[in-house]
């Protein structure tokens, strides 16, 4: 219980009582602190058990409403009350943050109120206990005083203790010498270091919650994205100069990085390479590489007359369309065609295109259709009523007249359906494939009615008054922008905690009180937990050549 050593001051003068005393008792109660910790742990458990509103949705009421509608399937009429209670965003809930703040305050008040007694214990320790203490101390050792007399024995003991890193004070009284030896007294302050660490951990968490920021960007090479929504005092833009993602056959990254430039207020403020664990940093913001996407294409459309750009986008080809890899040989076995056929016709259940087999005048519609066991089958129709028709499984070959078709496999071509490409159609399908030589090319369906545009890198194709240019493959980098003002607190707290623990466990304070009489020397200490009393006594007996007297059982 608290000891009210001075119950005075302005609150009492004001109210005639101590209005802050109950609050102080609460805040300095270890039980209260433990209850708060238990409550926060329970809340943490709730956040694991219950679905939480994704971070990216939290600023968007419409998105949150849609998310809640989905949760109604699980929680029914309880969904709305649970949301209002903050159970779907536990760590952002006021009651959680409030509890965290209360814990910080409790630990702080608790710690600071224990400062005075601890400081007294360190700065002005009790040096001369009553004589009864030497007879009744929990830890005591008794020796025969050496023949040289009490003063001489006390001097020897003092010297031995000093060599053992003790600070020693000696006094004489009634023919006996009294020694007080104190080692690592300042280690008693370790509790403040540890508690300060705990406070900083909690404060760091609260500050991160209030002042932290996180956003994910998906930026193509050569493109720039803003870090915030339009207006923000810290607004920055991130430009990706180069995105690199090389993987081995098992998908393990060999090289995974992005070269970034950060702009603020129209100036370049940072430039460097970002990796997953080695972010580019600027002004407290860290730009981590969080993703890589290699199938992008830069497409530009110009007005032929004015040369003005009408459309310029880095398209992320995030979907795939099935396309057959086909070989065609003639009767002599010569290879006439070896290519992945990019589909331009999308029929019900099949997609393909009409090709003329090189070196012949025969035209075939080659495509894929979903077959049995989720396999894509190759469909071959020769143009004309009497033409051949084949359906092949992957790896199969068949003849159509004097031509042999071999269906190697169905490839997945990166593609995207997009809007805004100037032309006749509202929407367009853009797919990227490779020539047998490995050169990427684009096939665009949609913007030009009735035509599939095939675009090779930097080779403009003119259609009416527009010029379409595939400016090359582009890679995308996923960049996670983070600002965590609490991070420094956490690092400092971790360091302080280590220091505090090290002081507590490796430099424990040990106080010894010794009374050196003419016949008997008694060395006493407090509870064994405060230090290795027995180990210290062994050291002293060895050093001084003493033999410890056996204690009677009732001495213990």
């Amino acid at each position, binding site marked *: 219980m608290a*000891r*009210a*050593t*001075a*119950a005075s*001051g*302005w*609150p*009492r003068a004001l109210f005639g009582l*101590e*209005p*802050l005393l109950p*609050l*102080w008792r609460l805040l*300095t109660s270890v039980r209260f602190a433990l209850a708060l910790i238990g409550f926060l742990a329970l809340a943490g458990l709730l956040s694991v058990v219950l679905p939480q509103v994704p971070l990216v949705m939290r600023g968007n009421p419409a998105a949150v409403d849609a998310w809640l509608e989905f949760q109604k399937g699980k929680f029914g009429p309880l969904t709305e009350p649970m949301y209002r209670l903050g159970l779907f965003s536990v760590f952002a809930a006021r009651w959680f943050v409030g509890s965290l703040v209360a814990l*910080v*305050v409790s630990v*702080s*008040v608790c710690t*600071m*109120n*224990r400062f*005075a*007694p*601890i400081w007294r*214990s360190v700065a002005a320790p*009790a*040096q*001369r*206990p*009553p004589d009864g*203490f030497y007879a009744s101390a929990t830890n005591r050792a008794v020796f025969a005083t050496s023949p040289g007399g009490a003063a001489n024995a006390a001097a020897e003991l003092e010297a031995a203790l000093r060599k053992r890193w003790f600070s020693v004070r000696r006094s004489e*009284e009634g023919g006996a010498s*009294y020694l*007080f030896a104190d080692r690592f007294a300042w280690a008693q302050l370790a509790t403040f270091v540890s508690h300060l660490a705990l406070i900083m951990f909690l*404060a760091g968490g609260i500050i991160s919650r209030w*002042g932290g920021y996180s956003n994910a960007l998906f930026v193509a090479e050569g493109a*720039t994205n*803003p870090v915030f*929504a*339009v*207006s*923000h005092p*810290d607004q920055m*833009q991130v430009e990706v100069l180069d995105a690199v993602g090389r993987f081995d056959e098992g998908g393990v990254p060999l090289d995974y990085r992005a070269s970034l430039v950060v*702009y*603020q*207020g*129209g100036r370049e403020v940072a430039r460097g390479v970002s990796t997953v664990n080695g972010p580019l940093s600027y002004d*407290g913001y860290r730009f981590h590489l969080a993703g890589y996407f290699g199938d992008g294409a830069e497409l530009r459309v110009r007005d032929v007359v*004015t040369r*003005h*750009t*009408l*459309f310029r986008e880095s398209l992320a080809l995030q979907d795939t369309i099935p396309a057959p890899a086909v070989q065609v040989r003639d009767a002599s076995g010569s290879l006439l065609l070896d290519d992945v056929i990019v589909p331009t016709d999308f029929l019900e259940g099949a997609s393909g295109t009409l090709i003329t087999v090189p070196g012949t005048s025969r035209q075939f519609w080659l495509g894929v259709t979903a077959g049995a066991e989720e396999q894509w089958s190759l469909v071959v129709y020769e143009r004309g009523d009497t033409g051949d028709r084949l359906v092949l499984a992957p790896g199969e070959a068949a003849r159509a007249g004097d031509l042999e078709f071999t269906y190697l496999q169905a490839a997945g071509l990166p593609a995207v359906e997009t809007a*805004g490409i100037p032309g006749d159609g509202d929407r367009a399908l853009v797919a990227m494939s490779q020539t047998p030589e490995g050169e990427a090319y684009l096939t665009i369906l949609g913007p030009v009615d009735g035509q599939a545009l095939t675009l090779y890198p930097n080779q403009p194709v003119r259609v009416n008054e527009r010029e379409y240019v595939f400016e090359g493959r582009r890679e995308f980098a996923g960049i996670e922008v983070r600002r965590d*003002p609490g991070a*420094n*607190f956490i690092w400092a707290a971790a360091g302080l905690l280590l220091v505090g623990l090290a002081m507590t466990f490796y430099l424990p304070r040990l106080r010894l009180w010794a009374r050196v009489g003419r016949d008997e020397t008694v060395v006493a200490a407090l*509870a064994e937990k405060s230090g290795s009393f027995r180990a210290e006594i062994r050291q002293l007996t060895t050093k001084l050549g003493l033999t410890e007297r056996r204690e009677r059982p009732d001495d213990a």
Partner: protein
Amino acid sequence: MTAVSDETLEERPQRRREWSGGVQSLVLPLALLAAIVGGLWYWQDRDGRAGVDDGFGVVALPESKNATGRGPLAEVSRAAPDFVLETPSAGTLRLSDLQGRPVLLNFWASWCPPCREEMPEIVSAYERYRPRGLQVVAVNLQEPDRKAREFASDFGMTFPIVIDRDSEVADVWRLGGPIDGIPSSYFIDEAGVIRALYYGPMSQETLDEQLEAILPEEAG
């Protein structure tokens, strides 16, 4: 040394707590905690966000140029808030200097896909309506001059471009209304009064319709 009672030989002084009055036991620790946390927070944020007045940004609209008699505000029927901004080629432009001509004020950025989508339409409208006195001012949001110049060259923007480096003008013009986004376009008549505004990318039809609100009647 003087003898002391064994009560003071406390083994674990950290287990003691002492009430020394409300100020010392409660207020002081809390104040100390607030000072430590506040100090660390300040240190964390010491670079501050205080802007340096470089002379560019929002400026007071001269009374003689305010035809409404009410304070400037980025709303329909209110005088357009005035500003002075830099061009990417180190020139300056003051909005109120353009009074006497209908102005389309467009806020954009090169990273904004809808801005890229509508820019050819704005360029085309500018070419069509320039004979009727239309002036387009494109306010770029906080991008480097080089980016703005490249974009302007790509898209054939021959009208003035200015850079809102610290977003001060954008904040005053309250871009995008409830969605806080770009592109945002304001149609200002010859007297400097906002006659229409549009949030989002504009098609040719939308532009024609909105511009009619500010363009003078065609002669003949």
